């Protein structure tokens, strides 16, 4: 079973009286435990593609199957549950909850969803440990460096034990050295867990850490 299958996906945003085609005839298959780099210029539709793959946006037309689950026609409520259980996001802007500590930012995922309590707290501790943040669990985002914040965001994306993790420019705010470190971390976390991932980036050097690269220009994909 493939981690993700996009078939002829189209996304149109209404803008005033006209429309913007952000994604057109997009077809893409992501295998089990595969890390895919999605590269393209600004405005090419990368974030749109991730949002559709992760059930944040619905496609205007086409088929979206994630881990065998066809979410193309899901209602908002179904998509919410799907996001809760199946996918992890690392957003283009880090978007941690500013008044929660690193550990609490991970724990939020449990609070919003299954509410398992203690086991979730243990998972959060273990994840932060793996991400090299054992000493930072009680820090607020404002007390963390950019790289540390990015790692907290990665931890948050892994909290719900997802089948698919979507990274939207995870290194854009980091310098080259730190970016490489974070990518290394992402790769090892994904491979160790057998999770598939899409990593959106502008930076060709990042693609080295991925198994395969797909280009996107003006909403159209090309290998």
């Amino acid at each position, binding site marked *: 079973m493939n981690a993700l299958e996009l078939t002829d996906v189209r996304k149109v945003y209404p803008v005033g009286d006209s429309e913007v085609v952000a994604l057109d005839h997009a077809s893409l298959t992501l295998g089990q435990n595969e890390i895919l780099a999605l590269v393209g210029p600004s405005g090419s539709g990368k974030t749109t593609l991730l949002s559709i793959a992760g059930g944040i946006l619905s496609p205007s037309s086409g088929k979206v199957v994630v881990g065998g689950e066809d979410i193309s026609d899901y209602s908002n409520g179904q998509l919410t549950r799907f*996001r809760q259980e199946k996918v992890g996001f690392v957003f283009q802007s880090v978007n941690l909850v500013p008044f929660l500590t690193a550990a609490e930012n991970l724990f939020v995922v449990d609070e*919003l969803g299954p509410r398992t309590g203690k086991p979730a707290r243990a998972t959060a501790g273990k994840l932060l440990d793996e991400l090299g943040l054992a000493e930072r669990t009680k820090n607020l985002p404002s007390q963390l460096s950019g790289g540390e914040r990015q790692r907290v965001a990665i931890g*948050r994306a892994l909290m719900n034990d997802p089948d698919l993790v979507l990274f939207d420019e995870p290194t854009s705010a980091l310098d080259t050295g730190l970016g490489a470190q974070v990518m290394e971390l992402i790769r090892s976390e994904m491979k160790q867990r057998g999770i598939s991932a899409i990593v959106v980036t502008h930076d060709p050097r990042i693609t080295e850490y991925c198994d395969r690269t797909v280009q996107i220009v003006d909403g159209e994909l090309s290998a």
Partner: protein
Amino acid sequence: MKIALLELRRRPGRFLMAAVIMTLIAILLMFLGGLLDGLIKSSTGAIRAQDGQALVYSQTSEASLLRSRIEPALRAAVEDVDGVERAGGLGVVQLGARVPGKGPRDLAGVALFGFEIPPKGVPDVPPRGTAYADETLKSDGVEQDMTLLLGPARSPIQIVGFVSDTSFSGQGSLWASPETWRQVLGANRPDARLAENVFQALVVQGDEDVASRIDPATDGRTDSYTIEGAVNAIPGVESQRNTFNQILGVTIAIALVVIALFFALITVERTALYGVLKALGGRSRTIFAGLVTQAVVVTLIAAAIAGSAVLVLDAVIPAGSIPLDISLGRIAISVVLLLAAAVVGCGFSLRRVLRVDPASAIGRGS
């Protein structure tokens, strides 16, 4: 919800304004409520204290003791009514009393009652020339064994003890025998003098619904009430209560508006945060529950501060100086009303919470 509570703890400054305003509103609400209860209490105590199942006035008296007359013949007719076990005469005269040790112009307003059936708390019918006094008269300097001089005739009344919660028209009551009352009334209000055996009203003891049977049996020469009915029929009580309840209603409405505006503002500020929470699989219901939790906690804190403040105020204000009656029941009612206002107020932000798009979290750039 835990995130909501953590935000309250980590960023109390954000909620300070709302908490302060809600505290002031809660104090106002509880204070006004206490004032209403105190006013009602001080104008109904004497009637509430009556030990019976019915209070009988004469026709057209409009539930006013001062306008009512019960002649012996009418009394006999009432006593014959089915279910009446015993009827006792009741009468009152309102006078200024000279209190020993106070200046000659410094009169205490008193309501001297003559009664046959002792009201609740009054042990017996005291001997001629003596009376039990309501405790509120202590704030006028009245003490045990003191002799007050009542009215222009300076009729002497010696105080033989104290009773509580028996005020009449906001005045402290004196409870005396019918003879004492009739004599003082005649001496000070010659125009209102009443003959032997004539009273203003009757307190009737009998079965539960005896009040409803008396008026038909006397061909409408009487105007009868249950004790509770008589309390509500006291002239002015109902309108006093209505006026106050309207003021309290407006106060609650203001609380609702304050909460609605404040949390609408907070919701707007948090659109981005809510977008992230939704993208992470948070349901609108969960997010809204957090908002309500915060409103409820802010309201509870405000109510707790207000409740303590009002209790302190009640202790500090000398008893009897203003008719303030702070009860835990009144505080509890105020808290419940404020909480309801808070929850309804949050409702105005529900649509905005529902409309937050998870896609806003993944937005381009910032």
